[in-house]
């Protein structure tokens, strides 16, 4: 069986960027960001480096590349639709950016972490792009095969938000372990779940966390179809097969 790319089944997303005097489209698709209204991105980047006018679309592409493996993104970005971060177009002035121009300092005055306007702008992008950035960073973690405390906690938050809400147990304790074989067991006041970190890429990033009243434990793309392993409301295991939207990479016509 062919191994599919991680972005197969993740719907494309597009945002609009004020670029010079024009409004341009920047699209995420196939795991990468594309400036749709620039024919020669490398050429324009070189021109800007030589003193030409900076181009907002290319600045966004470059920022995306810088943060594509930055696990801070997992901590900062929205955990899902119930965890809303107000969107703002790329490059818009931000009050928070000013608040965080005070460099955090650790021992000896050295900077520990530095958050800046680019972090803010990326995580506030409209059009679903921050979720695609989360997926990109998560895919990097999966590829590395090592889940840090930072990544695990952010994974925990995303699972908790969906799973406890789906179970109707928002105040329950979630005991979550990383495991290849997904399971969910509900005890008094405690929900014990085992999920692989790749759930974030395979399920969460594809927007498949809950579907038809089911909670999705695992998802894969197979011949233009999502194949889902789901829990029914009475916690029984089921397999669902759902035809993909033709616009989504991995679908029969989208690949």
């Amino acid at each position, binding site marked *: 069986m062919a191994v599919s790319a991680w972005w197969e089944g993740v719907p494309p997303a597009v945002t609009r960027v004020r670029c010079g005097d024009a409004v341009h489209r920047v699209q995420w698709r196939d795991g990468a960001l594309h400036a749709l209204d620039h024919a020669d991105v490398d050429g324009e980047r070189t021109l800007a480096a030589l003193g030409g006018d900076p181009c907002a679309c290319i600045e966004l592409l470059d920022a995306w590349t810088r943060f594509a493996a930055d696990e801070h993104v997992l*901590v900062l970005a929205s955990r899902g639709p119930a965890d809303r971060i107000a969107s703002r177009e790329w490059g818009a002035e931000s009050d928070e950016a000013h608040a965080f121009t005070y460099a955090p*300092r650790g021992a000896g005055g050295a900077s520990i972490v530095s958050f800046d306007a680019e972090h803010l702008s990326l995580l506030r992008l409209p059009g679903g792009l921050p979720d695609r950035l989360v997926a990109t960073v998560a895919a990097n973690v999966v590829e590395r095969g090592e889940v840090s*405390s930072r990544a695990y906690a952010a994974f925990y938050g995303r699972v908790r938000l969906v799973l406890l809400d789906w179970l109707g147990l928002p105040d329950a304790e979630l005991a979550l372990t990383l495991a290849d074989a997904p399971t969910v067991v509900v005890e008094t006041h405690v929900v014990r779940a085992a999920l692989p970190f790749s759930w974030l890429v395979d399920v969460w990033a594809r927007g498949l966390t809950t579907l038809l009243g089911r909670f999705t434990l695992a998802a894969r793309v197979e011949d233009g179809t999502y194949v889902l392993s789901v829990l029914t409301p009475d916690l029984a295991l089921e397999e669902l097969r759902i035809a993909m939207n033709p616009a989504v990479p991995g679908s029969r016509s989208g690949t």
Partner: protein
Amino acid sequence: MSVFDAELHLRLVAERALLEAPDPRHGGGEETVATAAARALVAIGALAAETAGEVLEEYTFAATLRGHEVHELFHHLHAPPRTAGPAALEPLRARRVAAIGQDVAHAAGTLRLTYVIFGERAELGVVGLLDESAFNHGPPSLRVKDDTGTEVQAEFAGGWSGRQLHGTFYPMRRTLSPTTRWLEVEGQRLELRDEDAHHEVRLEPLRESDPALRHLWRQITPDEWSHRPAPLETVIDTLVASGALVVDHPELDTIRRVHTALDGNGGGKRGLPEPWRSLRRGHGHPRGGDGPRGVVVVGAVTPVFDECAVAVDVLESSEDGWSLIVRVTPSAAVKSHFGGDPLRSHLVWWAADDRRHTYVAHTGNWDGSETEGSGVIQFEAPLDAKASYVDLMPTGHTHRAVIRVPLVWR
């Protein structure tokens, strides 16, 4: 047995709090519980302060992105860097402090000058009643002259309510002679009374105690509250999870009872252990408190203890409470609302008088640099007017200084 991962524990506390609605009792959700968990882990040595700070900063930023109010965590971002190690510390030098205790007629009303401290700048303590018109353009300034002929304009720093003014006047451009015998304020000569202030200062080791329990006791002292109840159960959960505390430790019941009694949510002080049973607290008497009015020149310095040193210059008392003008090195040893480091162990300002009352203070106005801070330590409960002395006890994590101050009012 699984190994406790302190960083992961803190991240999960912060993660849950970020996604939960802020608890109104704590005035803003994730900041308080995450900071409390971080402090506990740092206090018992389970997590490096730098790592804890990094986690707090990330979640502060996450909270800000969501439009949450940011309280304590945000302050961590402005914390002075920890550069002053124990080896660099020396006791502070005593400054000349003189009592004045005289009224001065100002165009806007009468000012009572209570003391003067000669440091880098001369600081003139003042209380007074001024005409409301005096505040139309901000508080008034004073013309002050010393016996060398130096004349300065001193500006007010402090607070005022209605016509009542309370604070300090500072010369802004030049300073006054530190050896002057008198000051002339608004043309009126004031003799300075230097006092033979040899206060007994000693260091006492604290009773050896379990680091987790010691942290819990410090957590529930009022100064640690920042005007909000400490999230005690979060701290207990963290200490239990770390293995530093057993969940059914017999002292936990006492700690919870003291916390509840001080929180005002039930339980009187009877039956509480000392010093809690004798703790006087401010009540905001509608008719005013019964504390003595006046100033005591202290001028005491402590040796270095628990990586800090303290100087107490002045004790001021009013009907409703009392305060100390102090200096501390490093400034980060004092908990302050702006610029403080919430992950560092702070001094707790205990005091006890000879009438068997105990007092505990919080930090008032504070001005800190990397090496030294100065400001006001505020006791909200009035002093017992019949007390003849008070022991000031800035308390660290292994020792406390005890400064005995006879209460001879000026």
